[in-house]
């Protein structure tokens, strides 16, 4: 048992760092607000990585994966966090891609995987509905067979970044008489199909990231069914449990703590830097301690994954603690800037000399 990096891993880190420094688009460095980004901004790094062969690192090598060890993937995410890169979105790379290469047929793999690898095709996820949130199995969207097509009707919601999507993967009820989890199918939908309508949901931070997606008599060829009809629940669960690495956001949170320390060193309180205030500093230390615990838990989980252990309760820990830590980090950053937390859009500006 040890925490040291081998010389090969150090060399890998150097290679990755140099590649990011040379190739990451300059205009996207330390990008702030996501809603100001264009479709091309979102895809820029993805496309560069696609050409390099690094866009779908965790996939099996036959579909474009890199064959990196968990440690290499950890180094990769650390280096990207360090450079605050805009990473490939998860909908294709981490969600539908693994479902297609695991359960899809040869035609589906050939048709859909290359676009995910290259970053040419944008995917969105059609799971939640107004009446089906955490109780996903109560979903009501229907797909009714009509010759060589399914006719899809229903409403999905919280469809993240669907405004840019070319394709979506949708859970639809194909057998209305079956029990809740049965009778659901996993269907790929071309978002330009007639009857697909995407409406924005404005969020609390003023941003536009999620949507309502309405499907009205949308005709989808039956070859877009993934796996077997009525077995979609199995694939949906596979997708949710599949991607364990990175869900904790450890590398980004570590970078966030560094930024928090920089801000708190520049803010003053009681005639001294805020970071010298013990009450504030102890909250930062407590956060760092919890983050250190999470980091080792993630590494243990990745090591277990490499040893062939299936996903256990620790993947839920990664999600829960990772999210809580991100929330506390944001909250502490808000506390650190004091009254400059109030200005909408860009409270942390050069005006107060804090950043």
């Amino acid at each position: 048992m040890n925490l040291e990096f081998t010389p090969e891993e150090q060399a890998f880190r150097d290679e990755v760092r140099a590649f990011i420094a040379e190739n990451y688009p300059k205009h996207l460095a330390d990008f702030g607000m996501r809603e100001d980004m264009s479709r091309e901004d979102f895809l820029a790094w993805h496309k560069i990585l696609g050409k390099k062969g690094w866009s779908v690192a965790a996939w099996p090598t036959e579909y474009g994966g890199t064959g990196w060890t968990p440690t290499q993937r950890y180094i990769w995410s650390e280096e990207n966090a360090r450079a605050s890169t805009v990473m490939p979105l998860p909908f294709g790379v981490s969600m539908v891609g693994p479902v297609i290469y695991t359960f899809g047929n040869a035609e589906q793999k050939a048709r859909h995987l290359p676009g995910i690898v290259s970053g040419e095709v944008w995917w969105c996820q059609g799971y939640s509905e107004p009446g089906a949130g955490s109780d996903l199995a109560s979903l009501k969207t229907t797909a009714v067979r009509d010759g060589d097509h399914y006719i899809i009707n229903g409403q999905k919601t919280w469809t993240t970044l669907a405004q840019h999507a070319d394709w979506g993967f949708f859970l639809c009820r194909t057998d209305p008489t079956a029990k809740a989890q049965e009778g659901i199918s996993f269907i790929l939908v071309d978002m330009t199909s007639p009857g697909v309508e995407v409406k924005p949901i404005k969020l609390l931070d003023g941003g536009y990231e999620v949507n309502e997606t309405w499907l009205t008599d949308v005709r989808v060829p039956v070859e877009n069914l993934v796996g077997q009809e009525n077995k979609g629940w199995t694939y949906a669960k596979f997708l949710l449990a599949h991607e364990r690495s990175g869900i904790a956001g450890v590398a980004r949170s570590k970078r966030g703590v560094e930024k928090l320390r920089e801000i708190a060193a520049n803010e003053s309180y009681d005639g001294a830097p805020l970071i010298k205030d013990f009450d504030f500093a102890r909250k930062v230390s407590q956060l760092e301690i919890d983050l250190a615990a999470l980091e080792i838990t993630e590494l243990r989980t990745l090591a277990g994954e490499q040893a062939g252990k299936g996903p256990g309760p620790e993947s839920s820990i990664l999600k829960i603690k990772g999210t809580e830590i991100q929330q506390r980090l944001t909250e502490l950053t808000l506390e650190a800037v004091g009254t400059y937390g109030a200005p909408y859009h860009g409270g942390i500006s050069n005006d107060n000399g804090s950043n």
Partner: protein
Amino acid sequence: MDFNFTEEQGMVRDGLSRLVREQYDWETRRKAIASGAGWRPEVWAQLAELGILGMPFSEADGGFGGGAVDAMVIMEEFGKGLVIEPFVPTVVCAGGFLKHGGTAAQKEEHIGGIVAGSAVFAFAYAEPKGRFDYADLETTAKKDGAGWVLNGHKAVVIGAPWASHLIVTARTGGERRDRAGVSVFVIAKDSAGITTRDYETVDGRRASEVYFENVAIPADALIGVEGEGLALIELVTDEAIAAICAEACGAMKVAHAMTVEYSRQRKQFGVPIGSFQVLQHRMVDMYTAYEQAVSLTYLATLRLSSDEVERKRAVSAAKVGVGQAARLIGQEAVQIHGGNGVTDEYAIGHFFKRLTIFDAEFGNVDHHLKRHVALA
């Protein structure tokens, strides 16, 4: 980066697990604690036979060449059975001082006895007014010829009633709380001028208040350099913290498992209480805290050989995180056991007591959070 245990470590774990399961059942432990001696020297002899007491010493010193990870494996198994025998004071603390600061002659004299189980040590460092500051010493060792004369009072010296030897910290120079001027000595407990007041601890062990009155210390009793003992004390106590964190992890694992099992057996309103979501959430929080504590214990253990600042930050992080987890898990386990949780009969209360006392050993959560802040 590697999170696997070696085959040898797996064998040590299995052997100890068997010993704890077969020889450390609840009734036997209870009787030993209530007995005059308060511990089981025959278990100590078995640990020597199994090679456990010699594990962390180099082969050159008569040991088996193990390291911090081996100590972690051992301590976790001890924690699962709430083993009371003085492995930490003898092997981790005294052994640590001898390994890191001892002369060839001191190693020769003492390590063989530790490995064989014939020498038992206690570590007399705390004082009634010193709290967690190893330099806040009223105990003094004044130069007297080639040796010293020791006077003072050491508090809550764990395992002292069973000990043949003491490791004692004392001020040989400087002012109270100065970093410089702290020295470490190894002496026989039956030296003239030592008296003790022995008592039981809440968590089933024995300890003493130890009084030194003009105790003559020979020149060869000094460990390390005179007046420069503090860095050595910090290193050894950091190793001890990693060890007791592993022990706490073992205890937390069992306390959580016992609680989950109890919630499946215990019925109220016609159903197992474990079917209530309000209790399920609390047990999930216990499990999460346990897993995070294990991670921090790994971190501290693997950083013991890093540079000083990195080591201290990792060890303090562990003492904070494991301390918080121990408090949460100990208390929740008792709550979910209901009235049975506060009876002497149920094992869970004894896990609670050990996990509660753990916090103040070698500095509590607040103290180590402060040290973590200071090293940021």
